[in-house]
């Protein structure tokens, strides 16, 4: 089943690194997933996160406020 990945962040350097890591993991492992980058503040606040970037997989917040490693993302996606 395809996963819905969302990356919440207002566009700072950290958020871009997170997007890069997630994209690489998805590409390298041929994971079926959609990646959405959410930069709108109101939308971000609906998830009630206080530190960005945050990684949301199928509407569950998995990581917030830091850049995950590739292995971490892979485990979360499996």
């Amino acid at each position, binding site marked *: 089943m395809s996963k819905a990945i969302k990356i919440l962040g*207002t*566009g700072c350097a950290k958020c871009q690194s997170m997007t890069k890591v997630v994209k690489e993991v998805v590409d390298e492992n041929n994971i079926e997933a959609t990646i959405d980058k959410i930069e709108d503040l109101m939308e971000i*606040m609906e998830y009630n996160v*206080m*530190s*960005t970037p945050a990684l949301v997989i199928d509407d569950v917040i998995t990581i917030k*406020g830091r850049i995950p490693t590739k292995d971490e993302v892979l485990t979360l996606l499996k």
Partner: protein
Amino acid sequence: MFDWIQHMANWIVYDLLNMTQGLHLSEALNFFIYDTVKILILLLVVIFIMGIVNSYFPIDKVKNYLSNHKLYGLEYLMASLFGVVTPFCSCSSVPLFIGFVRGGIPLGVTFAFLITSPLVNEVAIGLFIGLFGIKTTIIYVISGILLGTISGIILQKLNLETYLTPWVKNVLKNAQKEQDIFIAEKQTLQQRLPIIWKEVLNILKGIVPYVLVGIAIGGLMHGYIPEGFFETYMNKNNWFAVPIATILAVPMYSNASGILPVVQVLVAKGIPLGTAIAFMMGVVGLSLPEAMLLKKVMTLKLIAIFFGVVTLCIIASGYLFNVLL
């Protein structure tokens, strides 16, 4: 404690490079090597320790604590203290602000947190110990915490809720004190350490270029500007030095880690420490990029009042230091 670094710097400059002792260039190079090694080691240690503390006190825990405890006036101090252990990224300031407001935390307490968090952060502390020594660092940290606390109390007294942007007012109306479901990551220290270590390297990577340039400029000035050079122009009796230094400092931001090494040399050459500390608080604590981000939640008037109050408090502490130190 750092003698071995001095020996190493001496050895590189005078033995390995065979430069003559006492020349401007060799002194500047010696200073550069010594300061770089010392400061990088201190930054590594401080950022790492703060990373461990923060791993156990994530921001959600802080918010829940402030939201659920009656602290009888101590909440400003608590928020300010929490600000110290929370690493600050100006891009997180808005989500953080909304999160606090939503949790029913008073505006002034939120401000106390927002002021101290960038002012007393791990990078500033690491640089401060390296450049000015433990005593000055402790003074800086304590005054940073008090500055956040007092500014927070003043801002609360001003009843600024009407100056929030409309959608934040809406959030404020629906604020509730109930505990969010917060699932703490149950990890052992061993599982946490690699993640923390990676963060440390990330932070260092971002600031090292600025620090190196700052130390290089500092090194040159150290070698070429005579001792006491600034005393003539910026001594303690010069009452407008503190406000000018503070106001110059507010717009500077991204290069804060580069500015501190330069300021250290300025102090060594005769600028009063209080004036220098006011300058540094302005650089580290307030910044234009942060103001731009806050525009999403505050009207310009509120941002102006916020920055104004903090600037005044910084100027006041600058004068205080010049009297005390």
